[in-house]
């Protein structure tokens, strides 16, 4: 602690000089190579890489299930799958993508990797707990995928009672236990983040200087610790009802099926924010860096995350306008749902305003960030149709909903995930990927995405129900368009696997700060040392200390 290193963001690596230039620098990747050094690691960066590897696999499985569903829907009475198989496919797609990809993708990979680096800590507060959360996640994922691919679960990811508790024959119990374990994995991560963010910040790193990325993850963690136990317990009650015939939710046994929906959505609506808030936080970082500007209205963006986290708990009933809940409660929920839209709108406007008088560099992460803005605006605004009760009566549980939440979840979270992957890949691996291919691929993803999901808005408005295996022929044109788009989207998702793996072997060395970004994580080497910082930095510079004008002067002077 005697040596004080100032985190000023000069773009130079802070580190002890290497005694011998011929021996490669020790970093977290090459510090040891044994399998056990990976499987028993307590280093947050290695755990992040473990997560990256595992979520990629689950994403591929979930994506394959989606591919089956879309292929089946090319024809009104498709014959690729039986109805039972079809139901199992979309359930597998939903459960895997939500519980094993979206809920964990950004927090567990990039949150784990970056939060200690960004706040100037050596590691997360509880490294062993962190490793435990990965194991819980892997057990849950393996169990869930096995149950769904080999046993079959056909109740949808929502597990509505009494279908899930009394009537379905599939491996619902195992799938629920998997979701339960996955819940505990994310609780462990969230507890870790909260303790880390509160107590492990480097000297000088006040809440005002905290990157918006960290703010977003803090809000997410609060939602996780408040919401996840509720759904875990609720699902456990479903298992009890299923196994022992205990009537918590089944009307035949004296229970109330709508109670399940209340408790399920009490978590599962905030879960949407668990998925999208980390996406927001990634976008804040990318836009600030590639506009060379401090985020416009830093405090508004930070507090809007907390507002979303708070209000997000009070709107679950908008999933239940037609579920026979009381009309009066529906009214309350509708009002609150409109209110929760406002903080998100404020964020979008602030991001746009950030580019004003900036120096916009259209690198591949920035292209993902911009397409995020476009897609999220559509996703967010179409939420208004569903917050409004009168239109929701017509649109709920149709393809309109499907399109809406895919715009938020895929257009939002997955795009942000891709942006984050491209932005921090050089930091995580020390290598640069082929930038041009990445940029064109970002465009392909954007086009494929819109082609997939815009037609679904129309199909939904026309009244096509979701989760339909056989459907009336008049919806076929929209389904064909959508399937075509999904092919393009799938292609756009596979290409990065190749060029990112290629970059590991052949990519150029990235150097500590290839993007010229600010923030403590860019002041470490790429890849960072096992213990992140040789000395805990003392932060004096303000957050996002960019100067677009000076940088442009330098850049244009050189030309």
């Amino acid at each position: 602690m005697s040596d004080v290193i100032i985190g000023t963001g000069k773009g130079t690596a802070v580190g002890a000089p290497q005694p011998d230039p011929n021996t490669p620098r020790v970093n977290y990747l090459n510090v040891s190579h044994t399998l056990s050094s990976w499987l028993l690691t307590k280093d947050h960066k290695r755990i992040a890489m473990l997560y990256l590897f595992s979520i990629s696999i689950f994403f591929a499985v979930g994506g394959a299930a989606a591919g089956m569903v879309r292929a089946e829907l090319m024809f009104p009475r498709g014959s690729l799958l039986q109805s039972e198989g079809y139901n199992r496919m979309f359930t597998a797609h939903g459960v895997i993508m939500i519980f094993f990809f979206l809920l964990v993708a950004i927090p567990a990979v990039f949150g784990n990797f970056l939060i200690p680096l960004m706040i100037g800590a050596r590691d997360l507060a509880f490294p062993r707990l962190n490793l435990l959360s990965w194991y819980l996640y892997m057990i849950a994922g393996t169990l869930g995928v096995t149950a769904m691919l080999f046993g079959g679960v056909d109740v949808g990811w929502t597990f509505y009672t009494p279908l899930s508790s009394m009537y379905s024959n599939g491996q619902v119990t195992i799938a629920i236990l998997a979701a339960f374990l996955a819940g505990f994995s994310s609780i462990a991560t969230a507890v870790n983040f909260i303790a880390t963010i509160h107590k492990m910040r480097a000297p000088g790193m006040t809440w005002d200087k905290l990157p918006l990325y960290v703010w977003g993850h803090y809000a997410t963690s609060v939602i996780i610790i408040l919401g996840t136990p509720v759904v875990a317990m609720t699902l456990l009650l479903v298992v009890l009802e299923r196994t022992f015939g205990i009537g918590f939710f089944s009307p035949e046994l004296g229970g109330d099926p709508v109670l399940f929906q209340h408790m399920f959505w009490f978590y599962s609506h905030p879960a949407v924010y668990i998925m999208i808030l980390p996406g927001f936080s990634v976008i804040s970082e990318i836009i600030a860096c590639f506009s060379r500007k401090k985020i416009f209205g830093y405090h508004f963006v930070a507090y809007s995350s907390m507002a979303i986290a708070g209000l997000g708990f009070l709107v679950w009933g908008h999933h239940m306008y037609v579920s026979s809940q009381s009309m009066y409660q529906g009214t309350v929920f509708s009002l609150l749902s409109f209110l929760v839209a406002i903080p998100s709108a404020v964020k979008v406007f602030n991001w746009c305003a950030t580019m004003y008088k900036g120096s916009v560099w259209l690198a591949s992460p920035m292209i993902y960030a911009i397409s995020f803005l476009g897609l999220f605006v559509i996703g967010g605004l179409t939420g208004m149709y569903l917050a409004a009760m009168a239109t929701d009566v017509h649109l709920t549980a149709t393809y309109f909903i499907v399109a809406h939440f895919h715009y938020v979840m895929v257009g939002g979270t997955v795009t942000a995930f891709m942006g984050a992957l491209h932005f921090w890949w050089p930091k995580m691996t020390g290598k640069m990927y082929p930038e041009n291919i990445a940029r064109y691929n970002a465009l392909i993803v954007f086009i494929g995405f819109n082609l997939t999901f815009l037609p679904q808005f129309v199909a939904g408005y026309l009244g096509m129900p979701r989760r339909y295996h056989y459907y009336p022929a008049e919806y076929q044109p929209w389904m064909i368009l959508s399937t075509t788009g999904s092919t393009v989207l799938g292609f756009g998702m596979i290409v990065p696997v190749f060029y990112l793996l290629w970059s590991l072997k052949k990519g150029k060395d990235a150097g500590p700060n290839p993007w010229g970004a600010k923030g403590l994580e860019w002041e470490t080497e790429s890849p960072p040392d096992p213990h992140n910082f040789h000395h805990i930095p003392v932060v004096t510079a303000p957050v996002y200390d960019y100067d677009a004008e000076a940088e442009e002067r330098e850049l244009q002077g050189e030309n």
Partner: protein
Amino acid sequence: MGNSWLTFQPEKASSFAGQVDALFYVITALTIFFTAAVGITILILVNKYKRGKKADRSNPVHDHQLIEAIWTFTPLVMALAIFVWSTNMYIHMRTMPKHSYEAYVIGKQWMWHIQHPNGIRENNELTVPAGQPVKLTMISQDVIHAFYVPAFRSQYHVVPGRYTSMWFTPTKPGSYHIFCNMLCGTQHSEMVGKVNVLSPKDFAAWLDKSGNRFTETPKTLAQAGEQLFNDMRCGTCHGVENTERGPSLHNLLGSTRVFTNGATQVADEDYLRESMIDPFARITKGYSNTMPVYVYKKQINEEQIRNIIEYIKSLGTTKPASSQPAPAGLR
């Protein structure tokens, strides 16, 4: 549905359709406007302030309270306007009309069973008259279903254990999709049907021909209920007058029941149903639990319960003394 290959608009066949569509288009206009505004702003900014391009970048703004306030409150006001509009409409859609043609819907895996009050039964088809409100009282026999008619912009869940209701006024004779819109098991996507909207004249004719389906004279639900009532000898205890074994069922509906614990409840259809399948859930004051519960429970199905309720209804109703504590103006 229209015959054109690409349609952008579902058919409008109920009085709600026009209203919902108006709201839908207003939100659509807002969505397109804001999406375009954000998109064009981004394109302009990206183009103007592209890296390496000469532009005025002096004095960048990082905070501006007024601008933040403007773009917080403008969407807020718009959102609240839409909220008021849509909520008004929704309350209208959820307030059952006093006078309507009433049909009963029973959902079961994977079919719709529909009973008309005069005894006509239909499977996966619902025949209703155009131009008058139609109220559906719905219940499920197993899992949750949703009764959804896109052309009417109407949808409501059909829940086991409890009656739910929805209403609409069909405006255009024709035949429209019924979808089950809540995942209900393997053949969920085949739990579909048709609403046949007939002109009042055709509907009267249809009723006269007993729906063209039954050769024998259909019993009304109440008559069917009466028969069941007699078969099961309910009248032994539940006669015209209260006996010591059981209360009379005459003028039962709508009367305020006082229970052994002192709680009270206006007897509604849900209460009647509960009393049939679970007589001891709430015992009326002055009586004890003597109803042979194991005889009746599980022996009558939803259809028969419905019939008995109709029979009890035909025995007379009481207008609730002090109406429900609903806020004024909503009725």
